[in-house]
């Protein structure tokens, strides 16, 4: 069933996105909502290289990751001396500004997007091959986050999140830590973008707007912020649930509102009843 494979690929892409975002916001405590723009940078770089140069997919996706990392370092260096609400606003500006640029540049296709991304894998097994690749990449990202957050570096990152003044007083380089986790988290978004571009073969600015931030944030919060498996579970629930609703044979005018209602209800319920998410503990980051 190619449909299941397609849903699986989307879940895998969102797991990569949510795991990277969880590293930044959950472990690092850096309040940013610019994650979709790094997703977009990965997707657009990959797509433009694939269309314009015909380079192998691995190189195009690597370039996408590279551009996302460079952009994230730029954002980090210019904004990470601020934190909290100020960082949130700065990241929002970065997200909106860059997306407007993509929306108004000719070589990115403007609002029309890019629709002639070449086919890389074909045949009846295409969906399953993509699923295996995406699943492997998602596992790799989860493992890397787990490794990074399990050792001394992870403890330092969590200490920075909980009390940055105390952490700095212990001699830790907060700025370097912030840049590293920001670059890694955003680089994974670039990877997700590259996979998205190759699999769906059509990208446009509206696929990477600020509403994506809400979706990814909800995945992280619902699954369990600051945990390894929380974003995985959150991505699975939030991608699979709308698909399940389409099988209920409901009138089309009901399906959309029902999806919105369930999404909103889940967020409210979790905020009140289980703020630490499905797999989280009351102290974020102490789950493992």
């Amino acid at each position, binding site marked *: 069933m190619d449909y299941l494979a397609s849903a699986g690929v989307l879940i895998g892409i969102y797991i990569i996105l949510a795991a990277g975002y969880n590293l930044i916001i959950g472990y690092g405590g850096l309040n940013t909502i610019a994650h979709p723009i790094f997703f977009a940078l990965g997707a657009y770089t990959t797509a433009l290289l694939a269309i314009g140069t015909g380079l192998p997919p691995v190189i195009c996706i690597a370039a996408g990751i590279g551009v996302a990392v460079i952009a994230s370092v730029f954002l980090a260096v210019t904004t990470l001396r601020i934190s909290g609400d100020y960082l949130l606003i700065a990241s929002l500006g970065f997200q909106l500004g860059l997306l407007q640029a993509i929306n108004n540049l000719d070589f990115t296709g403007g609002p029309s997007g890019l629709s002639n991304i070449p086919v890389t894998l074909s045949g009846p097994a295409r969906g399953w091959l993509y699923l295996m690749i995406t699943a492997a990449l998602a596992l790799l990202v989860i493992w890397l986050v787990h490794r990074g957050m399990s050792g001394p570096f992870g403890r330092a990152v969590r200490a920075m999140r909980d009390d940055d003044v105390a952490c700095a007083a212990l001699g830790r380089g907060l700025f370097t830590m912030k840049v590293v986790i920001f670059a890694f988290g955003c680089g994974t978004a670039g990877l997700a973008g590259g996979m998205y571009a190759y699999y769906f073969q059509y990208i446009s600015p*509206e*696929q990477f707007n600020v509403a994506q931030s809400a979706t990814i944030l909800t995945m992280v919060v619902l699954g369990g912020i600051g945990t390894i498996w929380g974003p995985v579970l959150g991505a699975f629930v939030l991608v699979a649930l709308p698909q399940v609703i389409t099988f209920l044979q409901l009138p089309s005018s009901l399906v959309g*509102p029902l999806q919105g209602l369930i999404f909103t209800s889940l967020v409210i319920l979790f905020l009140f009843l289980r703020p630490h998410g499905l797999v989280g503990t009351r102290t974020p980051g102490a789950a493992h």
Partner: protein
Amino acid sequence: MIEQLTRRLVLSAPAALWAGAAFAQQKEPFRFGALMPTTGPEAGYGLDFVKTYEMAVKDINDKGGVAGRPLEMIVLDTQAKPELAISGANKLIDVDKVAVVITAWSSVVKAVAPIANRTSVLELNMGANSPDIAHLGDYVYTVFPLAEVDVTALAKYTREKLGKSRAAVLYINNDTGIGGAKIYRDVFTAAGGQIVAFEAYDPKATDFTGVLLKARVGNPDVVHIHGLSELPQVIAQMRQLGMPQQITSYSAGYNPKLLAQLGAAAEGLIVTSLAPTAGTNPNVAKLLDLWKQVGRAPNGLPYLQYAWDSTVVVADLFAWVDKNKLPVTGENMRKALLEIKTFDLPMTGKLVVTNDHRVDKPVYLYVVKNGQFTLLDTIA
């Protein structure tokens, strides 16, 4: 004897029709998919499209279906967003096993195109008019004329018949707006006119003062606005700014809701339509009668005429495939489309599918006069 036979025939005709219809309902249906925005900002149009599809499907099934089999439509919501369209197309093709998917809205048509081409499923556009749609691949066709048809006619008419020489073009910054605005600019310039302003506005904008003032500085004698559901606000704000110029728009402006929202500010507005009216086509009157039962005027009647006719096209494709004893696959549906080529459609007239993935239609120009759309000219 003859009288008795005639009476029997008359009495048996509805019974036969009923029996045929009932027979059609028992057989495996011919299924097709429709990806439409039934929620979100474009749902006003999307829900009316779906309603019209339902009317058309019912009409076909009441007449006995397609080759004795009922027609069945599966609708999935896209909110006019590409990411939802991709997910919906995958479900329609892989789970519901449809061989043809009807789409509208340019970004949705484009997002579904790679899937249609990859899976060899026919995608029929019934409402988007981006010129790019002609180049989306072997399995993407349109039954709706793309922007070059009506926008070209309108720009030429404005320059040559109305004698306007300085045009300002304001457009929504999306696929539809950019494509249409560029065509208007190129045609108007080629006809000897001058474009004094060429300004885009954000699709989510509610204040258009900036672009309108830029247009005013150019001192145009006509303002072409290529927008969507925000069109009434743009026109209202233009009039509030004291700009009395002639306004033109394309088929999105041919909407009774626009007249109700704008009132006197709509007077003189020239819009295009790509479908005949109830006055010239009695089938349209029947469609309007069906809408009277819904209890309100439909949004974008010409689009609904194409919605009805696209259902008829799909039914004709199924009938051709069935007649030729071919399996219902996307390849065979595409083959049917190219073999039939010319369709005589109830709501919009003759449709000729060409190899360049475009269709040509007469363009009807309307002007708002005394609160009504009045036919100004027809350009064949």
